[in-house]
Each structure stands twice: as structure tokens, then as C-alpha cells.
């Protein structure tokens, strides 16, 4: 007799693209025996808008509003990297005003904070715990309020632009941001209580989703996944950019390389981001230009050249390979996002043997972000 509960029978199952347990619009095609995944294939393309190709048809300044869409939770890294790449090729990177560098780093760190808050909430949310994700989304919204005040929008900031940033810090911004930081700090012990001191989470996270350290170089993993193995790898320290060298911080590492260790890294990085933002608000130059004055950004032409620029996003290393050919448009932009490695290659490799009920939290733990896979 054979039925659906027969563990010797292989079941073919589509997980997504319309599934609340999937991070964004992607799907995983699974073959299961019982509730154990035998193998799986990731399917992406549901969000494909062709950003890289679009940029080849738009002038540099017109490309600038596009790139933020490559990563919804953390758009600033994209804006920064495109700006930096083109500034380098256009020979103006060294002229970017000092104040702009501070504001850029500030927004990058604010974006890391907002994205980490969201993913940490999603981590337990995918296991069915409601309060933490709700708090986290609220706290993230407070950071987004600051972004709204700074850049004019909450999600797509379009703020870091060639030559600097688009606007100066608003009057009294530091004080209001500090208040937000205090609100977040006040909530962090509660998150510890509900998440890390919660047996349900501990049982479902400790030892689950293990990534062996030898895969790091083999698959070019980065971000909290690597730091949760005890390897201190962080672009902010390894290839320092903007004002990070002037800030005091250590790379956060945890041992275990499982979902629990990754969540711990993220939890500690929230505190680290808050600390870095405070340092920047204190040390930032108060006066001076926030953007370089160029003859025209509309008709900017950049000589032939290519460059690779990178930055540490909340998920890991973000890189932009930019090629210009002397015209007013890019010849090619290739976005190296951590999600492609983590959410497609690494996920497929980790699927065999995983329990299907752990799949959603595993995807969150790898911080998969489909729009960035499908640039």
C-alpha cells in the first residue's frame, strides 16, 4: 500500500513563488521523501527587470535612480557602489568632499542597521514567532523615518549620487537619529529574551543550517555567514572605504556556523551599527560642501575603463564591476550581490537532508534577496 505519508516515495513539490515562507519572489523546486528534502533546484526570474541592461541604455545620471531597486531593504549600497565606480573611472573620486564621505558612510551604516533589523525579525518570524518581527519592522520604520527626513524617501533613497550626496543633513537630524537609536537599544534586551533565550528558537536554530568553512573560498561566501564560522572577514576592515578607517570597531564573529550563530552575529551587528552611527554623528565635519560641483552631470562622459568596487552590505560583500567606453552611458555594469551566491548556489547545495519545515528559516538565515539575484 502506498500513500502520501510513505517515506520511501519521492514527492515533487513547488515551494514558491507565491509562498509566505519564501523570502521575496523566488521558488524552490523540491523532491522530498517524507519531510526530508532529497534535492532541490532554485528558480528565479519572477522579479527580473533587467537593471544591468537598462543602465546601458541610460545616461549616467538616469541610471542613478535605477540601482536602488536592486536591493529593496538596503538600496544605499547600490547607490554608493555605482557612484564610486563611475567617480573612479571619471577621475573625480578623490575630489569628493570630506563631508560627503561621512554622510555616505552614515547612510550605508543606517541601511545596514535597517536591513539587519528586518532580517533578524524575519528569522524568528519564519518559525512562527510574531512579536519579534513586529517590533523589528517598527524599529526599522523608525530608521526609515530618518531616511525620509534625510533623502526624501523611505525605501528608495536615491541619495548617494556622483560627486557626493544630494542634500545636506537636515537641521537637528543628529538629535532625532540619536532618539531612534535609543529606542532601538531599549528594545534589544527584549529581543534577546524572546529570541536567544527562547527554547523554540534555540532548538530550531542551533546546529541547523550548518555551512562547512571549506565552502567559504570555494563558493566565495561572505558576510554574516562567514563571520558565524569564526572567520573575521569584513570588507569594511579588509578593504576599508570612505571613513570606515577612522571609526573604531572590530569584526564580530561567532562560532558554530549554524542559524543560531548567524542570528547572534546579526544581533551584535545591530549594536555595532548603532555604535558606528554615534561615532559618525560625533566626528562628522559640520560645514563644507556635500557634493562636488561638476560642469554637468547630464552630459557627463567617462573615458574608457573598467573597475571593481566593493562594500560590505548587511548580507555580505556587494561588488560592482563597471565598464565605461568614453560615451555618456555605461558599457556594462555587473552587480556581484551576495544573494546570488547564498540564495542560489549555496542554498541548492544545502538542501539535501534539510527538513522542509526548516527551509524558510534557512532562506532567511542565508538572507536571500531575489531582486538582487535577478538584476
Amino acid at each position, binding site marked *: 500500500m502506498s500513500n502520501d505519508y510513505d517515506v520511501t516515495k519521492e514527492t515533487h513539490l513547488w515551494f514558491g513563488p507565491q509562498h509566505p515562507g519564501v523570502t521575496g519572489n523566488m521558488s524552490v523546486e523540491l523532491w522530498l521523501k517524507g519531510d526530508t528534502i532529497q534535492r532541490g533546484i532554485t528558480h528565479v526570474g519572477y522579479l527580473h527587470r533587467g537593471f544591468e541592461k537598462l543602465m546601458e541604455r*541610460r545616461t549616467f*545620471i*538616469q*541610471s*542613478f*535612480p*535605477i540601482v536602488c531597486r536592486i536591493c529593496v531593504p538596503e538600496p544605499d549600497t547600490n547607490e554608493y557602489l555605482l557612484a564610486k565606480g563611475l567617480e573612479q573611472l571619471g577621475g573625480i573620486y578623490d575630489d569628493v568632499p570630506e563631508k560627503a564621505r561621512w554622510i555616505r558612510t552614515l547612510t550605508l551604516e543606517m541601511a545596514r542597521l535597517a536591513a539587519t533589523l528586518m532580517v533578524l525579525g524575519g528569522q524568528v518570524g519564519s518559525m512562527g514567532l510574531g*512579536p519579534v518581527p513586529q517590533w523589528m519592522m*517598527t524599529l526599522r520604520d523608525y530608521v526609515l*523615518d530618518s531616511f*525620509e*527626513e534625510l533623502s*526624501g*524617501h523611505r525605501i*528608495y533613497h*536615491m541619495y548617494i*549620487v556622483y560627486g*557626493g550626496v*544630494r*542634500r*545636506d543633513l*537636515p537641521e537637528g537630524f543628529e538629535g532625532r537619529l540619536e532618539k531612534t537609536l535609543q529606542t532601538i537599544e531599549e528594545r534589544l534586551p*527584549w529581543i534577546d*529574551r*524572546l529570541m536567544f*533565550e*527562547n*527554547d*523554540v528558537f*534555540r*532548538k530550531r536554530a542551533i546546529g541547523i543550517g550548518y555551512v562547512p568553512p571549506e565552502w567559504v573560498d570555494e563558493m566565495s561566501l561572505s558576510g554574516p555567514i562567514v563571520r558565524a564560522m569564526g572567520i573575521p572577514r569584513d570588507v569594511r576592515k579588509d578593504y576599508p572605504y570612505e571613513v570606515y578607517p577612522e571609526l573604531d570597531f572590530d569584526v564580530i564573529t561567532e562560532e558554530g556556523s549554524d542559524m543560531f550563530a548567524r542570528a547572534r552575529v546579526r544581533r551584535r551587528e545591530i549594536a555595532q551599527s548603532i555604535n558606528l552611527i554615534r561615532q559618525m554623528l560625533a566626528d562628522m565635519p559640520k560645514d563644507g*560642501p*556635500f*557634493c562636488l*560641483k*561638476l*560642469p*554637468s*552631470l*547630464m*552630459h557627463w*562622459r567617462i573615458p574608457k575603463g573598467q573597475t571593481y568596487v566593493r562594500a560590505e552590505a548587511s548580507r555580505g560583500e556587494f561588488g560592482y564591476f563597471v565598464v565605461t567606453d568614453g560615451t555618456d552611458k555605461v558599457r556594462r555594469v555587473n552587480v556581484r550581490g551576495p544573494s546570488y551566491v547564498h540564495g542560489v548556489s549555496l542554498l541548492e547545495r544545502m538542501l539535501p537532508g534539510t527538513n522542509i519545515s526548516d527551509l524558510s528559516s534557512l532562506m532567511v538565515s542565508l538572507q536571500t534577496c531575489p531582486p538582487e539575484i535577478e538584476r
Partner: protein
Amino acid sequence: MSLKHIITPFSAWVRAFTKPYTVPEAKTMRPGAPRYRGWHINDTDRCVGCGTCADICQNEAIDMVRVDEPVNGDAGLRPRVDYGRCCWCALCVDVCPSASLGMSNEYVWVDGDADVFRYTPGVDEKPWDESALGWRKDEGFHLFDPDRVPMPHLDPLERVKTWAEVVIGYAEEEARREAARCVQCGLCIAACPARMHIPDYIAAIRDGDDAEAVRIIYDNNPMPEMCGKVCTRNCEKVCSIGVKGEAIAIRWLKRYATERFDDLKSVIDVTRSDVGKGHTVAIVGGGPSGFTAAYYLALRGFSVTIYDELPRLGGATFFGIPKYRFPLPSLDKQVQLLEDAGVRIITDHRVEAEEFARLREECLAVFVGTGLMKPYRLGAHGEELDGVIFALEFLRDYHIDRPVEVGEKVVVVGGGNVAIDASRLARRLGADVTISYRRREVDMPADEEEIEDARAEGVEIFTQSIPLRVETREGGGLTYVWGPAEMLPAEEPGKRPRPQLIEGVEHRLDVDRVIVAIGQGPDLSWMGDETAHAVGDKRGWISTDEFGATAVDGVFAGGDLVNPVADAISAIADGLRVVEGIVKRAKAKQK
């Protein structure tokens, strides 16, 4: 498993007694941040319809729609935003040259009809039209530089000692930088009488293709180096960037491009077409209108002869404009290309009535562009005295190497460009110069920049001074007597205010020369009275149709004789119209 880890999470119940973060409904929403990028607003009075917002919009969410008749400097178009496409990036606001476009801090707009989410801000009324908050253009961030690349000038105290060009000209890097500022809106094209392809040649200069720029310029202007140096530049007055910042230096860019090439033939193709083959055209007067007609008719295959009574072509641009503004080599270069195009040039030759009649017989068309050569008289007692001279004659005599004498102290009467040119010339001849003008300085028809330059060179300007008479002085010299004037409101709207002499007050100024520069009029006596009356009115002004044809068959006219604007670029535009007229006539003859 530990008991602690089972119990601790339940502590979250404590938070059930704290105030919630969330707001209950949309009505209690807070307003958007002060620089929120919300629905668009537009100050339509300030907007000039340049369309730069539509240009930069990468989503093509902005269309320019006609809301008004176009006028000089305002295309009559206003941006209409389609919110089905808009991504609220606000590049349109940041690029807006007039800073008229902005965004309100309004978050929400609910409507059941999907088609309403497309409107023309400022024209279609919206609740947020008066919103004081929201994203606005910021002084610290520019998509183009609002400031012009400064043009280097010779030091005023040095330059009065020499005949060197006052304006030094852009170096290559400066020109590229200046050209890059242009947003390519094209408002300038409508303002240019000759409709020059201004954005196109600026783009060519920006992209480093100066030869292409010169080719584009020569498409409808055969005297670009002259225009590049002395044009009245209507284009710059309507430049959209000039609304908020400094207009693009269109004139200096044209100058830059043409100065790059000593041999224009190496860039310009002067191959003649067959349109006018077999037809002859005579051109009387080698000023800008005749010059233009000659060049383009020659390119169309006509055999063209151009006559001028002076030793060089160029008309007023040759004898009227001092050489520190427009040096002879620049003029000769342009004349050379005219010759290369196959035009026969006859200078030092005054066409008289008999020859004019013969030319009318022999040629398909005769063009009259003899300009305004009869200076207006002062109408004050003593103007017939020795030492009272006309500025036009003073300038001409100097430029055709006749001896001119200015003495030590000169007064120039008038406020136009001729008055300024005469005073700066006299200054270079070593005289102390005073300008006497009957209205206020703002009313002076002369170019603002010119007035400034003259003053920098030490020319003194008396405004609201009405000439009363000129007297001889014992021991030689003259005394210029003038009375102060008060300004009365204009008789008709749109006219300038009138000066009214204040009776009983007299000022006296001892001078060696009085140079009269109060305007000039036409003189058609050379073509014989009968013909002159047929062609022009009794004062000598000529009216033509849109192609420059006069009332007399086969006679065309253009330039200052026809055009009350009386500047070089308008004359060039007349020349272009006449080319059309003569080509039409040739085609009609062939049928």
C-alpha cells in the same frame, strides 16, 4: 532544554500594557518629511517650458504639453507628469533650470479613476499646490553648473593703450566646460533671428568635435566669427539656465569654434549645387545681409557678384565695429570663404542709378542691402561748426585709414552701440571721453556689457543730459552746452520714458570734438529718385514680403533698410529669407 529558556519568552506579555507604536488609521498619519518627494507642484509663471525635466526623466513620465502660445523665452509648454511611470526620483526638480518645479510633501492621493493620476502641475489644480514643504532645488547640489566659465578680458587700463582684442577667448578646456553646462532645451533657437542650430553646435563643442560645430554653424550663418564676437545675442537673453543662474555663453562658444580654424575651407564644404545654375544675382552692399545672401546663393549654384563702396566687405561690421572687438583677420577669413564659394567680389565701387538699372536688366534678381548710412542730425544750434562730427563717419574714416583727429577732450552724444564704439575708439586715440545721453542708463540701447567695458576704460557717462547747443571757444575748441532732464512716464505703454528738459539750468563742457551718435537712417538716393521711390517709402525705408521681395519685381532687400531691429544677426536672417525668395524666383523662371 532549560527551564529558563522556556519561561523567559513569556516576559513579553509585559509589553501588552505599553502604548502601541502603530497609528490606528490613515487619517492620523503624520505629514511627510520637509523634504519628502511627493506629488509635483510647478510655479507656472516661473517655468519657461524648456523641457529639461522631460529630458532627464528616465521613466519618460513627463510630457511637455502646450498650455499657452509660445513667446520669446517661453515655449508655452508645461510638464505633465504621469504617475503610472514616475518613480519620484526628483531628478526633474534638481535639474529644473528655472527652479519652478518642486514636489510637495503630500503622501496620499486616493481616487477611484486610474486615469486621473496624470496631471500638469500648476495648471490642473491640486490640494497640495500651495504646499510650502517638500523636495525643492538645493543650492548645494547641481546637475549642471549654474555659473558661467569666466571669460578672460584684457586689463582695462592696459587695453586702452592698444588695439588688441579686449576679450581673450576661451581655451579648449574652458569651452568644453562651458558647453557642458547647456541643457539643450533649444529656447535659444526661437530667439535667434537666423534660427541658428545652437544646441547642436554646443553639443558638438562639448563632445570635442569643433569642426562639426563650425559646419553646423555655417548651415545658416556665414559670418559666425563676427557673431561670435559682437552679436547682440538674443539667444542668451532667453537661455533657460539664465533664469536662475548665468546664461550659457553662446556667443563665446561660437567664437571659440570658429577661431579654432584658420582655413575654413578645410572644414566647410563649398561645393555648389545646381539649383541656381545659369542665373545671375547682383548684390549691392556687402554687409551681413548681402554677405549672407551671396554665400548661400553661391552654394546653390547662382553666379553672384557683390558690390561694396568700401575697400572691404562686412558693411557696418567692418567700418562700424572697432577692431579691438572684431579684428580684421577674423573678417578676412569669412570673406575668403565667400570667395572660395565662388562669389565675385567688387569693392571700392559705388553702384549708381545707371548701373543699378543695368543690373536689374541683366540679373535674375538684385539685392539691396546698403544699410543706414545717413546719420541723424542733432538739431541743436552750432552743430555745423568744425569739430562737430558724426560717429558713423568718424568710425568709417578711421577704418578706411583716413586721418582722424580727436584732440584731448571729446563728448559723444548718444547712448547706442555706435556711441559706445565711438567713445572707446576715441579713448584709444588718447582722448578723455564723456558720453552725454538724454535718458537714464537703463534706457541706453547699447549692450550692457559694452557700457561696463567703456566705463572700465575710463569713459565718463552723463545721463539725463539734453544737448542745447555747441559754441566755439576763444583760443580754439568748442563748448558743449547741455541741460539736465527729468524723466516723464512713457506716452504709450511699452515705450521708454521721455526725458523733459528742466528749463533754466545749463551745464558747460569744454571739448575739442563733439561726436554725434544719435542714430542713422536710410539713404536710397544712389539708385535714382524714381527707383528709390518705387522701392522704398519717402524716408527711404523698404518694406518687403516674407522672402525679402520689394514692391519692384526682381529687387530684393534686407538688413537695416528693412529691419528696424538693425543688428547684424537680424540682417543675416534677412539674407537667409532672400535666398529662399530668389531660389523660388529661379524655379518659377525655369517652369
